């Protein structure tokens, strides 16, 4: 029996929304005891003295792109796993937007096997909602679910044909599957590289109103009302998308929503010198939108914070802004970026870990995300105040497309444990 005692740590309880000095005992990969105050080490136990730093449930990151199969030069299971471990992410929920897409049980089995071999953290895959993410025919949802797909998503492809979406949602409802959608009115946002407004006007970039996101939210909520499906918005970014979400939740629909760490910490003004590492999908919004999203995480209206980790190689990014690919890597920067919200006094650690660990785990039916007796010992020990300057060349991801290159950040991971085993 292996046994580890974490002493002298600040424990984060995202369920009770509390934090306090205490200890945590791990036996055989499971949390055996957790309590405030000190505790004597059991015989034979390894003792980890946290030095007063923070011990939290490992991050459960919903919506990570790993480029295997298909574009392993951008990110492999090995590199993504190392990045996750270094960033305190103990569970990756992988997007199915690989090449080929994860739309068959065979591809899913390949992915699951490779992930298990190559990565030190837990990796679960989502499968596509429609074949090859084309929005025409639904994928083999039931086979895929049996093969281990945790949820169904076409990534950032919108199922534009509402009839196809309605059928897929009805089918998903029947097999009790969670569908993860990307809210966007695709014809309105076609060709856009930025959010419409002063800056996009000045820069001469094709732009889209955040209203396109609102329209996507409205449509999808109507479809959920019609079909009764379980639904999660992968990432909201616009303030005006929040009132319909609040109404839908109030009406008792089984809807949750996420937000990316970038939309919580950056805004449209960061684009001002055409730096393509800031080109995201949806595009960065106004400061008022950012603040509304932060507030919605605090109130619980937004359930999940994700990295929306999207590796892109240099060739995809070193292009004129309109031509450059969208997306940013964030497995390693999720935690320090989230600390900006803590240090700004906008969100507490328990609120942050509710959104980064507890809620995504619950939504996907995983037992992790909590510091509770019986939960898996997926843990991150970190110093929320340790300052550093991010140098993108030090990232473990194969792709280095982070908007935080050269940024001053606070928050360093001191150790990461998956099932009680130290992985970083």
């Amino acid at each position, binding site marked *: 029996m292996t046994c580890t005692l974490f002493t002298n740590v600040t424990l984060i309880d995202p369920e009770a929304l509390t934090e306090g000095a205490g200890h945590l005992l791990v036996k055989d990969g499971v949390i055996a005891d957790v309590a405030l105050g000190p505790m004597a080490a059991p015989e034979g136990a390894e003792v980890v003295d946290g030095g007063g730093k923070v011990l939290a449930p490992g991050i459960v990151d919903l919506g990570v792109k790993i480029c295997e199969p298909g574009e392993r030069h951008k990110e492999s299971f090995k590199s993504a796993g190392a990045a996750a471990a270094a960033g305190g992410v103990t569970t990756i929920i992988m997007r199915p937007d690989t090449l080929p897409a994860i739309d068959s049980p065979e591809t899913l089995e390949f992915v699951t096997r490779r992930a298990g071999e190559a990565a030190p953290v837990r990796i679960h895959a989502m499968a596509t909602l429609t074949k090859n993410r084309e929005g025409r025919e639904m994928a083999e949802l039931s086979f895929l679910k049996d093969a281990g797909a945790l949820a169904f998503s076409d990534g950032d492809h919108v199922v534009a044909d509402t009839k196809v979406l309605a059928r897929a949602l009805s089918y998903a409802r029947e097999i009790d599957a969670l569908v993860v959608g990307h809210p966007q009115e695709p014809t309105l946002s076609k060709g856009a590289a930025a959010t419409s407004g002063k800056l996009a*006007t*000045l820069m001469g970039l094709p732009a889209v109103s955040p209203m396109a996101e609102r329209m996507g939210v409205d449509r999808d909520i109507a479809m959920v009302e019609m079909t009764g499906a379980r639904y999660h918005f992968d990432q909201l970014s616009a303030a005006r998308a929040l009132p319909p979400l609040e109404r839908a939740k109030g009406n008792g629909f089984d809807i949750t929503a996420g937000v990316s760490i970038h939309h919580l910490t950056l805004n449209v003004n960061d684009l001002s010198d055409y730096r393509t590492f800031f080109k995201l999908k949806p595009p960065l919004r106004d400061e008022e939108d950012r603040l509304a999203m932060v507030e919605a995480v605090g109130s619980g209206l937004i359930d999940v914070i994700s990295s929306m980790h999207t590796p892109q190689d240099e060739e995809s990014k070193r*292009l*004129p802004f309109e031509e450059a690919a969208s997306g940013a890597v964030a497995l390693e920067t999720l935690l320090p970026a989230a600390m900006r919200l803590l240090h700004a006094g906008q969100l507490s650690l328990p609120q942050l870990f509710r959104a980064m660990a507890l809620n995504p785990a619950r939504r996907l039916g995983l037992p992790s995300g909590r510091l509770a007796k019986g939960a898996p010992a997926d843990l991150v020990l970190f110093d929320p105040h340790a300052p550093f300057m991010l140098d993108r060349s030090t990232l473990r991801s194969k792709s280095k497309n982070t908007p935080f290159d050269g940024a001053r950040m606070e928050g360093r991971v001191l150790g990461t444990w998956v099932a009680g085993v130290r992985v970083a």
Partner: protein
Amino acid sequence: MTLRARHLLGIASLAPDEITAILDLAEHYAEMNRSGEKHADALRGLTQVNMFFENSTRTQASFELAGKRLGADVMNMAMQASSIKKGETLLDTALTLNAMHPDLLVVRHPHSGAVDLLAQKVNCAVLNAGDGRHEHPTQALLDALTIRRHKGRLHRLTVAICGDVAHSRVARSNIMLLNRMEARVRLVGPPTLVPSAFRELGCEVTHDMAEGLKGADVVMMLRLQRERMDGGFIPSEREYFHRYGLDADKLRHAAPDAIVMHPGPMNRGVEIDSATADDPTRSVITEQVEMGVAVRMAAMDLLAQNLKAERAA
């Protein structure tokens, strides 16, 4: 007076005194261009490369003539027909160019920000000859010079910029320059081509020509950029001409001595009728072309002075 930056990427990076310096020097070259001796040696021994990733006859010819009149060795590279088609990236192109040791690089590119990107990677002075919908600084400077020659000043003039503002880099550079020089800018056109976000750039926005032209000292018409539109911005060209095309009737709303400008090439009968475009008492369109050469000479002269100072140091 010299320019503070190494490149001329946009009006956004020019201070009012720099704008005035370019215009003053251009005035000198305009005079020289009208004389029998059209040659100076400000760029002697320097190599100027014109790289156009987008078709252009007028601007490229203007830069070429400007360079030649100042004694530079000028080379034109028509990029839309060459390596880009073979998959070479913009930055590979920059590396290739560096190896040729140009001194002045004149770039036009269909994407906003592309010239800035290129400027970060090359060792010479870069002049933006138009990037996407972003900036076209020498056009704004030649417009300013033309206005100044007719009105004697830029400040406290009312300039109406009419038509397809949304897709226009000319409009953006002009808005910035005119704001900076304390002129009053009014934008006129249908809401699909003049979005209200332009109000945030410090302009008045109106969708009615009579209101927009009222009392204007300068009426600047823009070309309907059919190639930059992805469809459906206006119902038809004839309806557009009826509501927004400049003719004598609409021009009556402007100040009696208002001048009419157009960056060219014109779509006659779409944004402007021929009688107005060719009216010698109002139209300064051909003078704009003339000032284009002078302004480009001035801009390249000033950038070359920096280059020489940098090399001497």
